[in-house]
C-alpha cells in the first residue's frame, strides 16, 4: 500500500512540474528563457518567478520573452524591455541606485549595529567582572560567612 502511495506521489509530482512546460522547440532558446525567467518576478503572484508562475500575465510575458529571444535580442535588451514597462520590481536583483540604497545597504547597517552592540555588551561584562576586587578584610569575612553557613547546614 505504501508503495502504491509513493508511486502516486511521484507521478503526480511530475504532473505538477508541467507548469513550467517547455515553451520552444529550440533547446538553446528554452535554456535562455529559463535562465532569464528565474531572474524575473511575476507581477501577479509577487513571490513567484516568471518561470514558476502560471498566471495569465506570466504566460504572456514568457511568450514576449520567447519572441525576443527568437529575434536574437541580448539578455540586457530583454531585461530593459521589461524594466521600462514594469519597473525594477520585476527584477529579483534590483540595481543599486538612489531608491534602492536602503534595500542593499540596510541589512549590512543592521548587522553592524548588532555586532557593535554585542561587542560593547561583552566588553562591559568582562570589565565588570575584572573590577570586582576584594580587600583582605572582605576576604576574611567571606570565609567566615561561608564557614558559618556550612555549620548551619
Amino acid at each position, binding site marked *: 500500500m505504501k508503495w502504491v502511495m509513493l508511486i502516486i506521489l511521484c507521478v503526480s509530482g511530475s504532473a505538477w512540474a508541467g507548469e513550467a512546460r517547455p515553451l520552444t522547440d529550440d533547446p538553446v532558446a528554452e535554456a535562455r528563457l529559463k535562465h532569464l525567467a528565474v531572474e524575473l518576478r511575476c*507581477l501577479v503572484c509577487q513571490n513567484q518567478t516568471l518561470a514558476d508562475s502560471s498566471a*495569465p*500575465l506570466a504566460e*504572456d510575458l514568457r511568450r514576449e520573452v520567447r519572441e525576443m529571444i527568437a529575434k536574437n535580442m541580448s539578455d540586457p535588451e530583454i531585461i530593459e524591455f521589461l524594466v521600462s*514597462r514594469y*519597473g525594477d520590481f520585476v527584477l529579483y536583483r534590483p540595481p543599486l541606485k538612489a531608491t534602492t540604497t536602503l534595500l542593499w545597504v540596510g541589512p549590512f547597517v543592521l548587522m553592524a549595529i548588532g555586532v557593535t552592540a554585542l561587542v560593547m555588551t561583552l566588553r562591559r561584562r568582562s570589565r565588570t567582572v575584572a573590577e570586582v576586587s576584594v580587600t583582605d578584610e572582605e576576604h576574611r569575612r567571606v570565609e567566615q560567612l561561608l564557614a558559618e553557613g556550612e555549620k548551619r547546614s
Partner: protein
Amino acid sequence: MNRFLLPLSIFVVVVGFLGIGLTLNPREIPSPLVGKAAPEFSQPQLYDQEKVFSPADLKGKVWLLNFWASWCSGCKTEHPVLMDLAQSGQVTIYGMDYKDQREEALTWLQRGGNPYSVVGVDEVGRVGINFGVYGVPETYVIDKQGVIRYKQIGPLYPDTVEKKILPLVKQLESE
C-alpha cells in the same frame, strides 16, 4: 528604568516601521511609464472592427485610458464610477478591452452602459504589456502631448476621481 529605555525605543521604532508597512499596498507598484510618452498602438475597435483606435488621433486632448475586461471583478465595482464620470462630461474616457471575448464584452457594455468614447480591443494583451498593465482595471491619465501623467492600479473610486483624477485633468487642460 534606564535599562528599559533602549529596548523600549527599539520596540517603538520597529512598531513604527511595521505600522507604515501595514498602510502600504504591495500590489501598487510604481510605474516607470508615468512621465513618459504613452506607447503607440493601433487596435481594432470593439463596435466597428473595421475602424482603428490609436492614441495618435488624440494628440492635443487630455484623456483617460481604462483597461477593463468582462471577466474582471474589479471592473464591476468601477463601472458605475466610470459611468458617472463620463456623464459629467469633464473628461473623455477611452476603453481598452483587455484579453476578452468580444461577445461578452458587448453584453457587459449593453447591461452596465458604455462610458467609453471609443473602445479598442487588445485580444492578446500586447498593448497591456506595453503599458505595463499587470492587473485590470488600470486607468491612465494622458496629457495633450500624449504623455502618461498618472496611473491608477485597481478600480477607480468616487474618492480617487474627486481628489486625484479631476484636479489633474483640470490642471492638464490648462497647460
